[in-house]
């Protein structure tokens, strides 16, 4: 009964995997699959439809033998999205949102796929294709048509690790020997592990900065069990790709972090929730999990520690940004719509299946593993007194060296801009669309908890980029990704998108800016989860940060864009 604290429906942890099986079999979920599935899980077909339609990688109609997802994030837009989009339509004969007549290709847009350092990028049957241009699209499609196996056509994703702190102060990107961290658990009590993490002052890297040791300790104290560790590898915030690089470069570091968290908290099972956009890393991660089992570092008596059993499995997402929010992720893992839960309980109280659960970001868990391996003192050596350690920043946009930067806390914006070789930085987006925008007036600000806090994304745009285009892209993103449960976010993002579209037509009045501020504020205070609460941050901040851009001419009382001829076009058909 307790386990049902969040819904009267039973949880179906296997549902997402089952749906993927059906989807992979035929490229979409057929009516008969739906029927079969609804029998298998003994739920009504509308409940299933509800789940399926929530995730944009599940299809209820044929989606092509080759399903192409082109990323429409702002970086992609600026790097040639439109031309690549047209090229795909031309070469495949399909229109976006549809499948070509032969059923070979399906074209779809998708939000950021975590490849912002090599845009425009697309996934074809979930394999990565990077740095696309018109010519490359033609070649790729031609090869596929010739029957070259898709695995041979796709690109190797570059890690682009551009910077590590000098003097061996690196935490993440340094020599790595799988197992070195887990084996440190021998001889340490769970309390000592938590103490070590506390001493390092490690705080969450998923954006909320909650102290990791504290989270683990609170979960440890929960009387209910079994407990769960969830590794949040959903990395959906546009412009963020540091978790991708961590998992690709050292897939087992996060696994070690999970086992360590499990030991500290008293959990027996860990679940790595991998976004479907990173399916191409799935095999690699699973291979490493297996290797750890073989090495005795997972399973029974992990690392020879009597009585410490820990299993890890991988859960594949299915396309949704809000699922990165921890309570939405728990719902998703239970085979439900990925809607954020009401904040009645923390996951550490009632999480997966209503049981105490720690949800941590990939980077957090990797840092925890390193802290155990190298000691909290090593971690404390880097960074500042209040924000110790290093932080991974995904840099993209108008700079010559896009990629991942392991910076020490305390580095200034100016220093990072120089490192990534941004020629004419003008507008910087910190922490993705839900974060904040800054201008060169902020160049002296330092990355840290107390000054410029950054979830991991840093997008640079130069002066010739249109700010309105950036804001419209972000708002459209939130509109698409809102889970639709609460009014302010569901309706608000839609309303603001319309407003920005109107502004794009050159119809902005001063009152529109006032509206954006007020409506944006209402969404911030009234939305149910972090998505809606943060969706208008950038919009509001941009008005203050770039006033010169938003100056408008007073209109003369006539809407010059209203086109009478166009508005009567439909009627003209009846002229005989």
């Amino acid at each position: 009964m307790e386990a049902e604290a969040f819904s009267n429906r039973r949880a179906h942890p296997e549902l997402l995997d089952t749906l993927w099986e059906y989807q992979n079999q035929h490229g979409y979920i057929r009516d008969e699959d739906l029927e079969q599935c609804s029998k298998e899980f003994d739920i009504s077909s509308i409940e299933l439809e509800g789940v399926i339609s929530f995730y944009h990688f599940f299809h209820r109609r044929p989606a092509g033998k080759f399903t192409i997802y082109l990323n429409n994030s702002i970086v992609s837009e600026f790097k040639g999205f439109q031309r690549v989009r047209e090229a795909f339509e031309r070469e495949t004969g399909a229109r976006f949102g549809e499948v070509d007549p032969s059923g070979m290709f399906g074209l779809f847009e998708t939000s950021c796929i975590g490849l912002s350092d090599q845009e425009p990028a697309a996934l074809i049957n979930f394999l990565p294709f990077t740095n696309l241009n018109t010519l490359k699209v033609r070649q790729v499609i031609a090869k596929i048509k010739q029957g070259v196996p898709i695995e041979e056509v796709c690109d190797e994703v570059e890690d682009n690790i551009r910077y590590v702190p000098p003097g061996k102060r690196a935490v993440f990107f340094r020599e790595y020997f799988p197992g070195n961290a887990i084996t440190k658990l021998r001889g340490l009590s769970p309390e000592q592990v938590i103490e070590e993490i506390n001493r390092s002052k490690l705080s969450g890297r998923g954006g909320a900065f909650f102290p990791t040791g504290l989270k683990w300790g609170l979960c440890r104290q929960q009387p209910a069990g079994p407990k769960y560790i969830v590794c949040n590898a959903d990395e959906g915030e546009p412009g963020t790709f540091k978790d991708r690089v961590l998992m690709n470069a050292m897939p087992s570091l996060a696994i070690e972090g999970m086992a360590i968290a499990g030991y500290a908290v008293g959990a027996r099972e860990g679940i790595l929730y991998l976004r479907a956009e990173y399916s191409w890393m799935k095999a690699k991660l699973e291979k490493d999990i297996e290797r750890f089992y073989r090495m005795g570092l997972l399973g029974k008596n992990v690392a020879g520690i009597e009585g410490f059993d820990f299993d890890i499995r991988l859960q594949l997402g299915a396309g949704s940004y809000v699922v990165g929010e921890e309570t939405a992720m728990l719902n998703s893992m239970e085979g439900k719509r990925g809607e954020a839960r009401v904040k009645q309980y923390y996951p550490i109280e009632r999480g997966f299946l209503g049981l105490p659960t720690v949800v941590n970001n990939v980077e957090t868990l990797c840092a925890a593993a390193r802290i155990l391996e190298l000691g909290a003192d090593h971690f404390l050596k880097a960074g500042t007194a209040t924000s110790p350690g290093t932080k991974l920043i995904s840099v993209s946009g108008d700079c010559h060296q896009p990629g991942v930067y392991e910076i020490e806390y305390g580095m200034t914006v100016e220093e990072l801009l120089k490192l990534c070789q941004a020629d004419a930085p003008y507008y910087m987006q910190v922490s993705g669309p839900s974060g904040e925008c800054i201008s060169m007036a902020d160049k002296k600000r330092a990355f840290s908890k107390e000054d410029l806090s950054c979830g991991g994304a840093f997008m640079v745009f130069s002066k010739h980029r249109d700010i309105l285009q950036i804001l419209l892209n972000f708002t459209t993103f939130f509109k698409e990704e809102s889970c639709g449960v609460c009014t302010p976010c569901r309706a608000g993002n839609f309303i603001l998108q319309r407003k920005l579209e109107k502004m794009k037509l050159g119809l902005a009045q001063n009152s529109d800016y006032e509206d954006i501020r007020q409506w944006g504020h209402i969404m911030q205070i009234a939305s149910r989860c972090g998505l809606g609460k943060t969706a208008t941050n950038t919009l509001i901040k941009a008005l203050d940060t770039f006033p010169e851009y938003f100056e408008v001419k007073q209109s003369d009382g006539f809407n010059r864009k209203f086109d009478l001829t166009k508005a009567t076009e439909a009627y003209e058909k009846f002229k005989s």
Partner: protein
Amino acid sequence: MKNSKAKRKKKQPTKGAVTIKIDGKEITAKEGQNLVQIARENGIFIPSLCYYEHIDPPLGTCRVCICEIDGKPAPACMQKVKENMEVRVNTPEMEDTRKAIVEMMFAEGNHFCPACEKSGDCSLQHMGYEMGVSISRFPHLFKDRIIDFHPKRMIIEHNRCVKCHRCVEEVLTKEGKQVFSLCNRGNETVVGIDYEQEAKLTREEALAAMQLCPTGAILVRGKSMAKPFGDRQFDNQSVQKEEQAKKAVVEAAVKAAKEKKVIATISLAGCFGCHMSMLDIDLGFIDLLEVVEFNKSPINDIKKFTQQCDIGLIEGGCCNSENVETLREFRRKCDILVAVGECSIWGGLPAMRNMIPLEECLEEAYLNSITTVAGEHIVPYHEDLPKILDKVYPCNEIVKIDYFIPGCPPNPEHIWKAVKNLLWGDQYSILYSEFKYD
């Protein structure tokens, strides 16, 4: 359904009494009780739409119950009372936020109350009245939504659903299967119904579903007029009696001796209801003529502007090219332009066609209606006839509108109070009874 309620009713452990403050008023309650409930029991009105006392944790979807809890905005329905909790319900900011959220629901859905079966028995409409929503500050989104006639007993009117989740959580078959589920996400979210499961519901269960829906989205066939017009729970009085009465203080009437101002009026795509309303001040109209003079207007049948006017009152939006031209002329000839009534503000009833392509509308009206004989009728088109626009445009999408007077039609007092204020700066306030339009 009964079964699920029983199952989910949490036994409330008897805890100690606590004292909380709501808008300065001290209230004693049992610890852990729901704030909305406690407020209600103590005669304090906190708006709510999705809150249902037996669902725990509460749904928390609609967000219209937002209040300041210990200094921070938070939904009241999510709060369990605890010692020294300080709640502020009626601060200007909270009042405005709650109102905005209700307005969002109206902007997002397609609510044509005069044509709605639930009008008068609808919680959303009720919230609108209680909060004094007379117009949505948000542009209407005119999203095309369907009315689902497939279910055996029910009709689902997607235009009116506010996605409160109540039906999703509460309407289950005897085997415990969901009959409703939210489908899609973002602004595409709709509540889907399972035809197979719906067919298993008894008539009583179907009626209960209609009852629990806070809007007119779930209808049961043959049962759509449960409470006929005129017999409605919030027809005459606000549930916040005293407060409203206090607010509704009427300011002094027309001040004497003013320079005569010139007014022009027009009815575009409207029904002349707003003009009828203007005339409804009865004898007051004669007094009005002491201080104003009408230029172009249907009231005196002057067809052409003969001078520049101080103020132009526009009824109706633009549905054809003539409307557009007339409106532009008004903009040129009037110093102040006021959109009077819903149709001119956002399209109103004529905008019911905005969700349907023009071609379909005209074919339905002229070619495929039951009284037309195939092949004998055409869609009228002549160069002397105004051209029909692709959709009905609110006036402010064609020209700049300076002021808006909401209502369908606005109350006559409301119209003239606003006009007097604009022309001579008279102070005024609008009574509760003056912004009820049904």
